[in-house]
């Protein structure tokens, strides 16, 4: 990649940041250049983010229909899956899945709620709510 070909496409996923990339300058030396981003990076990053957003949105629909608990919604909003939430909280996966059942979630002990809230970076109050 030549220095003048370094993409400066204002990649939205960089949130205004500039990243350092390496490219060949006119004198033939490979040097660090700052880049405002490449559309290709934006496409693949948006793809990953949108997939997680879709999971969160679908979980929210199910939660509003009473088919799952707010926990599942918050898990996807925190870009986690059951495997990662299990590792973060130290709970078994099957227990977490059980807590996706609204009646079970409603009876959850304050200690367990605290554990989930900490893992997901939420307040206790926010954990029980979906907006």
């Amino acid at each position, binding site marked *: 990649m030549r220095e003048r070909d370094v993409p400066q496409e204002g990649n939205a996923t960089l949130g205004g940041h500039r990243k350092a990339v390496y*490219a060949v300058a006119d004198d033939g030396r490979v040097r*660090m250049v700052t880049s405002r981003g490449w559309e290709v990076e934006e*496409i693949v990053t948006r793809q990953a983010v949108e997939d997680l957003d879709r999971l969160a949105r679908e979980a929210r629909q199910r939660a509003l229909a009473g088919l799952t608990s707010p926990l599942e919604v918050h898990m996807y909003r925190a870009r986690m899956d059951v495997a990662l939430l299990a590792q973060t909280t130290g709970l078994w996966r099957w227990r977490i899945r059980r807590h996706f059942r609204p009646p079970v979630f409603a009876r959850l002990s304050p200690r367990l709620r605290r554990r989930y809230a900490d893992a997901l970076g939420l307040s206790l109050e926010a954990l029980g709510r979906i907006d």
Partner: protein
Amino acid sequence: MPPFVHAHASHCESGVMASLSRHHGLALSEAMAFGLGAAIFFAYLPFMRINGLPLIAYRIQPRAIIKRLNRDLGLGMRFEKFRSPAQGTRRLDELLDAGHLVGLQTSVYWLPYFPPDLRFHFNAHNLLVYGREGDDYLLSDPVVETVVRCPRADLEKARFAKGLLAPHGLLYYATGTAAAPDWAKLGKRALKRAADTMLRTPLPFIGIRGIGMLARRVERLAEGDAARMYIGNIVRMQEEIGTGGAGFRFLYASFLQELAALTGYRPLEALAARLVEIGDRWREFALAAARMIRRRDPFDAPALAARLRGLAADEKKFFGELDAAQRAWAC
């Protein structure tokens, strides 16, 4: 100790080591840190998954650069992990108050200054802490242009994130002064190590053979959203923030040029030019994949697999020549 100077870099671990080594008496570019750490790599790791997608690495395992440079430059690094976040934070404060520059391994998800779209649960990020003020830490994150601040609670969460490659609060700092080494001797050894890893690791998913294995996997993808996610994941690992583009191939080319200039060993110049071309091929692969993801081009798994096979052949030849150049280097 002189005041700390931040430097922007394309990759976190080599950026951290460049800054840390400069702070401890030896100016070192990011490219030299990356190259001397023999960090150029390829691995297709289907058994390590983030959000259900396999890990594809274009760089050596986390901490390898730090450990190799520590040994080669005599930095006298200390590494500490912690059982509890409270202990980890106390120790960090203690070291900062004693005037140390401290490196940390963190998750990127919990760092508030990261752009929201890039906050994934990736745990092998590296950054430096050069001070604290009230409840804020003063950070030098190599992939960010300027220094940043991070509140205590967020940094603690980032250091003690769980999951794949969990950092367990890892911190590290240098106790020695880096001495200018015998660049030719170190360089030759680092080249040998890189060539050995890429050509001769006896595992089918590492090095050139790993590229071939990924090609076979890609070839079997049947068109659909899952397949588009799969190829998007490969490109993210290759191009996203923290790689400098083309899976670190340009960064390593920069190292080869710098080593050639430093030691006068000319054959490395031509190898650098060759690797820049290979980097361009990696970017063409990324572009082709992105066009299929956006449905600008029809999904064509065999075409992507063919590109990967071509890259495997190019890199096999390149690392073979690198190995030969390294053997012929009398020093």
